[in-house]
């Protein structure tokens, strides 16, 4: 397993009242947990992955996701069992969308 934290800055503030979990930790899949934090324009992402050596790919996937979504003040935690970037992006989007619908 490899653990690392990626920090993203984003001035658009997230609004998550209820933490949200998407996905399942199984081969080629992952779970994404999104929570509110009080860290202002910063989003921290804790990644725990079984695929060692892909930190730069995570950085790129998360940076793209950050560009399109309001992540300021969000805390994301990920347990990954070797998901491809496509699956990672999909879960991030699913988690983000359901965090919004939970707050409505």
């Amino acid at each position: 397993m490899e653990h690392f934290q990626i920090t993203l800055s984003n001035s658009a503030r997230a609004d998550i009242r209820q933490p949200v979990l998407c996905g399942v930790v199984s081969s080629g899949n992952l779970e994404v947990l999104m929570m509110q934090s009080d860290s202002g324009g910063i989003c921290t992402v804790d990644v725990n992955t079984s695929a060692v050596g892909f930190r730069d790919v995570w950085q790129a996937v998360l940076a793209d996701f950050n560009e399109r979504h309001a992540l300021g003040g969000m805390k994301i935690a990920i347990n990954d069992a070797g998901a491809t970037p496509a699956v990672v992006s999909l879960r991030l989007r699913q988690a983000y969308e359901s965090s919004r619908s939970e707050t409505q």
Partner: protein
Amino acid sequence: MGEHAQWNRLGEGRTRRLGRAARLAAGKVIAAEQAVTLLEAVLEPGDRLCIEGNNQKQADFLAHALVQTDPARVRDLHLVQSVLALPEHIDVIERGQVSRIDFSFSGPQAGRLARLVETGRISIGAIHTYLELFARYFVDLTPNVALIAAEAADRHGNLYTGPNTEDTPAIVEATAFKQGIVIAQVSRVVDSLPRVDIPADWVDFVIQSPEPYYVEPLFTRDPALITETQVLTAMIAIKGLYAEYGITRLNHGIGFDTAAIELLLPTYAADLGLKGKICTHWALNPHPTLIPAIEAGFVQSVHSFGSEVGMEKYIAARPDVFFTGHDGSMRSNRAFCQAAGHYACDLFIGSTLQIDLQGNSSTATADRIAGFGGAPNMGADARGRRHASPAWLRAGRESRHDGSIPRGRKLVVQIVETFREHMEPAFVEQLDAWALAERAKMEVPPVMIYGEDLTHIITEEGIANLLLCRTPEEREQAIRGIAGYTPVGMGRDKRMVENLRDRGIVRRPEDLGIDPRQATRDLLAARSIKDLVRASQGLYEPPKKFRNW
């Protein structure tokens, strides 16, 4: 007199060989125990030999007999056959009985073959496409002896090849009409055949094999293993390509990506109102995953290269769709279906292991010599084609940037996920084919589909329409633009890719109105093999390894 003789050397050779075999049988039927003796009698050093090894059907008994022949007598053979699939095909090389091979595909034996080539124990003439090899049977690679497989024979030597006719007609026609010897292994000898697929006077010997010939269920894909990402790419293919071009005549490669497309036809495509407008005529093996689309009335016609284990009853019950004999069973024909796929289809779509920045794609890896079978025949523009169709014309229009004379173009599409399992990228700067070419001393790197034939690439990131690219730079950025987070994808010029997106050269799922979150397995018309059986009204009988009942 002497002058006459030199015009019939082949005929004299045939007489000589038959003479040596005459003591083994009164008629054409020879006992299984005599198989080795028969081969030793008819084969001569330097012979071109075809051991019928198709994609699926294998003349396995005769192959096994061949490796028991005396290497002192049976030697210096030149194998000319489409597929090297059985261990015996390689064993006979290792036994030193073969000096040269010309073939198309060797997937199951690719590793062993590569080692033999590297150690200089065999020389490869060429790795062909199927059509190319069959063509050479009639030019300069005509077999002297063909060992073929059939379902049944009658006492005269008429053969019933049944649903798995595959390569047999091409092999026998070339061999029999150039004074060669045709030996058939049959699963049974009967008084009267359901139908005659190969007439008796093209066949010299018939041997009933102790076991029926082996058939591999190569084209069965279990819907349970289709991923959400494959559902997404299938949605992109249907909406962004099939619907856009109005593709009615097509061929699908084998794989879960294309199986997903087949299973979305009665659901997603039907919801888009595409029934009757796409996917009506196919050059395709009877894929079990096509059953729901057939049952939904999407499909009018399917011609097949070979059959598929378990599909026999279903095919027989759908004669309007499949090509069947008057006996009810299917007749396949690899050579004709390859020609159909090449000339009469508007689209080929398949998957690959690697795509480079020019769009060349290959499944070759450095330590395996596998060949590509039929994919290059389907996955190439048919430059000789003259008849028009809307899809063909539109592709042609899109590809002409210079005001040249109007002409159509075949759609050749690769559908891949940006990363395969274990995070292997599908997009690379250089194909592994180059490394293989160097190790195996090939004259050209083994490319499956050339970039210049490729028209579209589909990934979960979207579609790249290479027809619309005007420069090599645009083409490269279009490929990088849908290569996601692979090193190739991350090396893209973001501004240029956005520019291509504005011009519709790169289209993201959202550009097509597709929400990736809708791409769930619940869209599949069948989620398991059992669902397929039920869709077939119980007519499909899957092989045991696919059943939990």
